[in-house]
């Protein structure tokens, strides 16, 4: 039997026998099932994934009836990163009219709430113009990025310095201070941009600094939702489980550290989030079949637990997509099709 060409999680090509691909699919789903304490994929679902890898098609797409929304985070930085000289408005129009985006996102190049609060006065008129020029829902996006509130970038002591010294209480106090400042910034920016015409706000890469950051984003979402009940709030995650950097923080009586996507979404929902973006990390030393089966297993459990729309993160190093700056299309399209069709996603 001939070998099938696929990739490792770092994007390099490998060739595997059909049975080796199937073994990797089984191992991937079992890994997710064991870590997340969720059901593994069924044999039918694994065979479906196997067929995706057996297909010689360079690019695959969803079957009729499975079409979904396409949203993009940090939209107005992506074209700039490709060194294409167009304005933010033109970028938004390109996404809307040429690239099939169903939601749009205005963002500042320095993509953190702490940084963007200083340019809110400039991005408010940008938002006013952007909503006049385009039709789809318009979000304003940035990252909670709690790390920016601690030394050397912020005013609070750095728990990363305190913890190794055994200063646990001081580290927790530092987190408490940073949380307070981050919540304040997220509410300020969210309020200002919503009042300037945004349909909603995106908390992107939430939880990158662990449980304290997830808590800050949940509290900010809760406050914004109470203040603006019709506001759309998207929350995209940073990793598949919440790192317990603090370890004891709870939201609504639930300890945040160690939560996997199917538990994260329940709290996001409670906080007033209207679109949730689960993330499953790609292991660069494992094959794409292993990674995809794993990602679909986590995302499917998240979809089943969710009562709000899910737009899963698929891109560089997440969602069974290789860790490449320009994700290869064979891998990205297979991951997209599998997630949408097996996890009943609302969007990507």
């Amino acid at each position, binding site marked *: 039997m001939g070998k099938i060409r696929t990739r490792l*999680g*770092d*994007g*390099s090509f490998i060739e595997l026998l059909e049975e080796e691909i199937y073994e990797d699919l089984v191992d991937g789903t079992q890994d997710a099932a064991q*870590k997340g304490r969720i059901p593994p994929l069924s044999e039918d679902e694994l065979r479906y994934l196997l067929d995706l890898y057996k297909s010689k098609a360079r690019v695959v797409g969803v079957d009729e009836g499975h079409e979904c929304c396409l949203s993009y985070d940090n939209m107005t930085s992506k074209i700039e990163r490709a060194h294409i000289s167009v304005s933010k408005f033109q970028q938004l129009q390109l996404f809307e009219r040429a690239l099939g985006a169903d939601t749009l996102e205005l963002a500042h190049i320095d993509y953190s709430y702490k940084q963007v609060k200083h340019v809110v006065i400039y991005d408010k008129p940008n938002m006013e113009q952007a909503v006049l020029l385009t039709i789809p829902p318009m979000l304003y996006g940035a990252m909670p990025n709690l*790390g920016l509130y601690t030394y*050397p*970038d912020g005013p609070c002591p750095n728990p*990363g310095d305190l*913890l*190794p010294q*055994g200063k*646990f209480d001081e*580290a927790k106090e530092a987190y408490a201070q940073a949380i307070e400042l981050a919540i304040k910034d997220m509410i300020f920016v969210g309020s200002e941009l919503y009042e300037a015409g945004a349909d909603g706000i995106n908390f992107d890469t939430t939880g990158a*600094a*662990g*449980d304290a950051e997830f808590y800050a984003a949940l509290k900010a979402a809760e406050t914004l939702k109470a203040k603006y009940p019709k506001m759309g709030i998207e929350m995209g995650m940073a990793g598949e*489980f*919440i*790192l*317990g*950097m*603090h*370890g004891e923080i709870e939201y609504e009586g639930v300890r945040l*550290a*160690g*939560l*996997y996507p199917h538990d994260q979404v329940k709290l996001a929902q409670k906080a007033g989030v209207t679109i949730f973006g689960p993330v499953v990390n790609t*292991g*660069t*030393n494992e094959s794409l079949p292993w990674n995809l089966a794993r990602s679909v297993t986590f995302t499917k459990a998240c979809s089943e637990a969710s009562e709000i729309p899910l737009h899963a993160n698929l891109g560089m*190093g997440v969602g069974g997509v290789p*860790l490449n*700056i320009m994700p290869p299309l064979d891998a990205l399209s297979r991951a997209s099709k599998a997630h949408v069709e097996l996890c009943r996603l609302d969007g990507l």
Partner: protein
Amino acid sequence: MVEKQQLFVEAKNSIVNQNKDKAVDLAKQGLDSGVSGIELLEKGFLPGISEVGELFGSGRLFLPELIVAGQTMEKVVEVINESLVGGEAKGDKGKVLIATVEGDVHDIGKTIVVSIFKANGFDVKDIGRDVPNQKILDEAEKFGADVIGTSALLTTTMVQQKNLEELLRKEGLREKYKTIVGGAPVTQRWAKRIGADAYAQDAGDGVKKLAEIRKD
């Protein structure tokens, strides 16, 4: 024999449960009853720290606990070291200098790596974040490092890992140190391309890779 097995189980649990006093007592008890320090480490305490790493990696144990488990392990190693003539195994697995590269202030992952490396018996010096390559070399010389580990979270800063390899070659120091690279955008392919000796996907993988490159 059963007692010895029980001792190993309790030793392992003392690390997993981050019980410093109990771990030290068990180490002393084992040594007093004639169990060798090496056996105590290999069959009792090291499987404990290995389980701690796995629990952390799957989100079942958190950073403060990881650090206390690491400190517990360090105490045990101290006790066992004292019992060994000439310092057999323990903290002499090698000296590792660790830094986050210049331009990068992300050090959450590095903090975890440092804890796990120390807990596994490596002598680790963490020189912080945003460290220029020349300073990394100077500190490695002062510390007498065997291995230099660098972390980069950004695609824009990972190039410093390549620059470090070039600096090592330019200074004629490339053969003196083993290098290990890690960080979110870093891959095995990147490590190979720049000429690093090893790539670590996470802290647990780092321990395995350190052991491998130290054997070479």
